[in-house]
């Protein structure tokens, strides 16, 4: 069985396990949906009071918000195995993965697909659809492709962050809470246009952890709106690649971590 088919085998089992507790699944998804909906209500209230945010309309922020919410919910659901890696190492379960003739990445991705994230995804989707309907976007095939690419690139980016978080565990054994600054914190920061932040903050989220490439730059290109940061159009169109590059680097880092583990066994 090839790696992709095996991945779906793993995920099938994971989903079946979660659906066994159906009531719990429905409640948790609904909870996620409501909590994040209230979050967006907060943003709406701000705009209602102040009209706009440095020239950004509510619908434009809604597009950024909806896109990053969908991206984050998806990445969070896919990379659960890496997210809980600290527990796996502590329990000594990583040894079990190593004695199986498959890549550790595949086995960890197969650990769980967190179904309840669907609540957050749906909430993001609702805001996103409302936003693009309200905005005067003339949709072309290229823009639809860019949107899909931005989604994939963003998911790669967040998964990369979680992979790095897991890799650090090889040295610390504890999952670093600090890394939440990049996952939850990065997600929260990306709900607003990157242009409103200070220079060093912008640079960090464009060049080091390129979260700006996940929603801000592609959204600018899709809206056809002038960018206060004056990024060239070609950069906007190529921005989804940043996430893919980031994940590739994270996976190399992961390999170093596994090598460290096998030489220390701790």
């Amino acid at each position: 069985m090839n790696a992709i088919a095996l991945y779906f085998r793993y995920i099938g089992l994971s989903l079946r396990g979660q659906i066994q507790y159906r009531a719990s699944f429905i409640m948790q998804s609904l909870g996620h949906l409501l909590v994040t909906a209230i979050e967006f209500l907060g943003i709406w209230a701000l705009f209602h009071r102040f009209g706009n945010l440095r020239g950004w309309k509510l619908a434009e922020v809604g597009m950024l918000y909806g896109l990053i919410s969908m991206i984050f919910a998806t990445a969070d659901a896919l990379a659960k195995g890496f997210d809980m890696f600290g527990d796996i190492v502590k329990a000594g379960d990583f040894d079990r993965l190593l004695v199986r003739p498959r890549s550790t990445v595949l086995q960890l991705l197969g650990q769980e697909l967190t179904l309840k994230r669907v609540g957050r995804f749906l909430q993001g989707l609702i805001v996103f659809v409302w936003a693009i309907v309200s905005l005067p976007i003339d949709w072309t095939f290229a823009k639809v492709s860019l949107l899909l690419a931005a989604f994939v690139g963003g998911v790669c980016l967040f998964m990369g962050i979680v992979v790095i978080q897991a890799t650090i565990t090889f040295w610390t054994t504890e999952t670093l809470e600090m890394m939440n600054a990049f996952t939850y914190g990065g997600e929260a920061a990306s709900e607003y246009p990157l242009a409103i932040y200070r220079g060093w903050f912008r640079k960090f989220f464009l060049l080091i952890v390129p979260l700006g490439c996940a929603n801000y730059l592609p959204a600018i290109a899709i809206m056809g709106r002038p960018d206060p940061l004056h990024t060239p159009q070609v950069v906007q169109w190529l921005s989804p690649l940043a996430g893919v590059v980031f994940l590739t680097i994270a996976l190399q880092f992961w390999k170093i971590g596994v090598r460290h583990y096998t030489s220390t066994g701790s």
Partner: protein
Amino acid sequence: MGQIVVENLAKAFHIAERQAGLLGAIRGVVARKHREVRALDGVSFSLEAGELVGYIGPNGAGKSTTVKILSGILVPSAGRCEVIGRTPWKNRIEHVAHIGVVFGQRTQLWWDLPVIESFELLRDIYRVPQSDYIKHRDELIALLDLEKLLDSPVRQLSLGQRMRCDLAASLLHAPPILFLDEPTIGLDAVSKLAVRDFVKRLNRERGVTVILTTHDMDDIEALCTRVIVIGDGKILSDGTLADLRNRVTRERWLTVDLAEANGAIDDPDVTLIRREGQRVCMSFDPQRISPAALIGRITQKHAVHDLFVENPPIETIIAKLYAEGRG
């Protein structure tokens, strides 16, 4: 060339020393002191296909480290290791496809899945063709008496049941080599016997090479013809069980049930080991006095209900070996 060759294997761990108190903890973060621990220090041995070897030693002797290196989980600091011509840590995936590993302490199965589904997932992970899978699975189910357990989730199994399932799970891909790391730990007597019986058949009938680490000397006596003893990262002894006995001690034990309640045995050629009521256990050197002569002398002087001569238990032999190695 053996099926498993280990030459001068060494493994050193760097362990951060914890210092006492808050100040020590802070100092530990800034400048950590490291202590080097040699888990393995020049271990060499070679196994032919079809051997069943006991690998024993006290906690921290290097047993688990050796098994982890052999199964590709750990990379050694120095030395050579080949399993069926492959170096375990160089090509992990290819290597682990040809071995089976069972850790007594933790299961290889999926906690929430019924046993049979764990088996099917392992079939896919190990790429076992369906016809082979059915053949191996059915044989293992029959040998280990698993029929009734297949539909239970692993978390509902007793330790003994779980171990039987774990053994089957490690063999679905029919590996020629099996590493068993303390497979009988915590098991009740009946389960221990079942595991031993299975391992013995696997080795005798299928020719599977087995390396067995254990604390349970009964496992060794029941299963292994060859015993490797390790202590402080070095091999202290490697040979048959009989060799080990002869090397360390020639003594044999004589146990006598006396008729009188408080009778004492006073003989220049025996050393008292213990006495429990009427039963007296003592050791003697068969080269100084033959068992027949000794028994004759004792039965002349004392009224005896029963008596028997035996080898000292393997624990005693190992303890002597460690004492020698340290001294």
